[in-house]
């Protein structure tokens, strides 16, 4: 099939950008979306033009590296799917596809479709862990975890840190990302000791990075490729309120 692509091109080092149109004949419907962009890039290189920069790595939907907005939706139209797992069989001959980077103040564009998401790392660094040094651990089975509770914790831990939640949110809020980590650890016995401190610090870092507030639009949940639930945001709000009222050190 034949496709028209409108792709955001922006020079390196935070220059200005604009949409550029490309035509791509002969797209095989079994290709993945990124393989389609590979073909475009091969075509550009053969014309001695600079290829479209986009980030990608595992191409299995798990590393969280790929990050574009396709026709207005982070990771494209399919539910629970990263861009790398989106296949061209969901498009039709003659379609025009608009491709942009994730847009958020806290995710500055580096080049074309590549953005800087290191704010997420700093949120985790602010407290998204259990403080246990190597070698300090007790026998694994001495910490029983109720099966369904472990499952809920896993559901939150499944976040791949791609940033689609931020890109989807009209406020560019990072609440879904942050709350997924808060929930993952708050739901486990291992996370209890630092529970209050963690949520306070992570929320403070999130605000410092310039992410917006949550206004319950729930676009984050709708676009999350791992279908992380907004109930995590509710849990984080609860955790935060409880910690803010009872944490003596703050």
């Amino acid at each position, binding site marked *: 099939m034949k496709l028209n692509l409108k792709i955001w091109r922006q020079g390196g080092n935070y220059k200005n950008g604009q949409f550029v149109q490309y035509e791509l004949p002969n797209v095989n419907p079994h290709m993945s979306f990124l393989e389609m962009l590979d073909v475009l890039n091969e075509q550009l*290189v*053969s014309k001695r033009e600079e290829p479209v920069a986009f980030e990608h790595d*595992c191409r299995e939907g798990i590393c969280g*590296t790929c990050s574009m907005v396709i026709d207005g939706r982070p990771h494209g139209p399919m539910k629970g799917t990263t861009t790398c797992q989106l296949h061209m069989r969901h498009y039709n001959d003659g379609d025009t596809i608009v491709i942009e980077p994730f847009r958020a103040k806290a995710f500055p564009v*580096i080049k074309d479709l590549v953005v800087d998401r290191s704010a997420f790392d700093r949120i985790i660094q602010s407290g998204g862990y259990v403080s246990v040094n190597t070698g300090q*651990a007790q026998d694994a*089975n001495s910490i029983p975890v109720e099966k369904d509770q*472990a499952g809920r914790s896993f559901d939150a831990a499944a976040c791949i*840190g791609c940033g689609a939640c931020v890109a989807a949110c009209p406020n560019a809020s990072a609440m879904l990302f942050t709350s997924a980590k808060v929930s993952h650890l708050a739901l486990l016995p291992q996370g209890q000791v630092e529970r209050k401190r963690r949520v306070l610090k992570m929320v403070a870092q999130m605000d410092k990075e310039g992410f917006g507030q949550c206004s319950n639009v729930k676009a984050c949940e709708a676009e999350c490729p791992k279908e992380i639930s907004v109930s995590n945001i509710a849990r984080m709000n609860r955790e935060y309120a409880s910690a803010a009222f009872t944490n003596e050190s703050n």
Partner: protein
Amino acid sequence: MSIKTSPALNSKAPSGPISDKWSHYKSTVPLVSPNNKRRIDVIIVGSGLAGASAAASLGELGYNVKVFTFHDSPRRAHSIAAQGGINAAKNYRNDGDSVYRLFYDTIKGGDYRAREANVHRLAEVSGNIIDQCVAQGVPFAREYGGLLDNRSFGGTQVSRTFYARGQTGQQLLIGAYQALSRQVSLGAVKLYNRHEMLDVVVVDGQCRGIIARNLLTGELERHAAHAVVLATGGYGNVFYLSTNAMMCNVTAAWRAHRRGAFFGNPCYTQIHPTCIPVSGDYQSKLTLMSESLRNDGRCWVPKNAADVKKNPNDIPEADRDYYLERRYPAFGNLVPRDIASRAAKMVCDEGRGVGSTGLAVYLDFADAIKRDGHAAISARYGNLFEMYEKITGEDPYKMPMRIYPAVHYTMGGLWVDYELMTTVPGLYATGESNFSDHGANRLGASALMQGLADGYFVLPYTIGSYLSNEIRTGAISTNLPEFDKAEKEVRDRIERLKAIKGKNSVESYHRRLGKIMWDKCGMARTEAGLKEAIQEIQALRADFWKDVFVPGSDAEYNPELEKALRVADFLELGELMCEDALHRNESCGGHFREEYQTPEGEALRDDDNFMYVAAWEWKGEGQKQDLHKESLDYEVVKVSQRSYK
């Protein structure tokens, strides 16, 4: 046994009974006191399981650690993609598992080509890994009683694999990433994301730092340290198509090799039996379906070649050949990966392969769904089935999956001694980037185990042995002439690539190299094929340096330039892999030479002549590399023909 170990290789495996070696080593290894650790700098390249766990642990110990990753975040490393699980000799199932059994299974699974002392240590620390990860909050699968669940995996007869749905690697990596993040917040570890190591710097025979390229600005940076740890993963992408993530590459290991680190067993490649088959020329990578699927899925092809195009559900039981169950009744569908892969190739070569290309076999869950119910199978493999459906557009609950082997892991890597140090003093290699623990074939769920064992529990001890001699060295200057020279060489290399301005894309060379490697140094190898491959690779490499086109500037984010540097190194590695495969006149594990097989088509080892590690020494561009042998003298395991019948 008359193989003589090269004087250049000292394994430093401790003497004494196998079960005492590690505990004795740990209690006698020299220590570095806390006030001295503060004065010692360690560089870690790579932030996957092996790198992140080492960085976190060394940071906790008090060393000044710098960790480098070419990703935007340490959490992206390819360890994240491991699906199935992680082995540990916990014996929580009460099914007869033990440290010795895990050790024995790993040695046997590796076709008797791994170093005994290293493997035993790996089995010993395996239980600690699970403890550590659980304490970090890794959400492993649980039973109703709240205790940890296990599953079985290929090549073993016990259930020792811990798992977190089909995303074990992701959860373990996030655990290590969080431990690393904690050290970053405490100031013990400095994180350099979007930095790629392009050379190691050796001063007076000791590794003293690295040259790294800032991938956003293109600047070359010098970083000095008292020791450098490469945790840079495997080189499966030399085959172009593999299950490795797109950015996985050999550059860090290869640059170290060119600076004097010997490369061990480069030809040992693991071809994973259960991957989604290739569908077209545009294909950029292959997707693995976890080996755990073989617990419940049955591999088959039609008995008659005439049936291969039929709808599989219309082929009656009597006309199906469950070839693994037929050939290996004791292990059935759970034979090790190399055996399962070759068996699939064999039935496809017989013309009984299915799918549009004829290069696929069925992996059928109909019986398991009948036995355990849709819900139970969905709980075990739901996300894998979904992934399969997304890629192929077919529903594996209704149609058997189609699978075919694909390159997945490289057992070979930088040669290291018992302390995980390469032949360059002060330069270490951990995880998949070293050669040490899996012999000629890795068992499923052992890669995660090895990466974390090296980083959490081995390197933090062994690196002290070297660093205890560095406490008086003082800070190392990046103004040394060796840094000047290394930086200049990297710069020249980049300039040279940019100046070619040829007519072919980097990708096109990578694809051509991959085809040579897969056809001639893949699942089955022959003397004639390997000789051809070497010539073809040499010609391709020459052409690359004459006619490649690298667009864009080197002073900004430029993925094409990054790829060009990596492919250039693959073009050198590929030749060495073929040389290694050519010299090893036997078949073992993932290395199958057609000339050396039993009448039933099984790998035929030659222990008298080849029971050694092949460690190759770089001798300069265009020169043949020197072969050094480390004899594998087994003290404990009785070497026999591997049988899974």
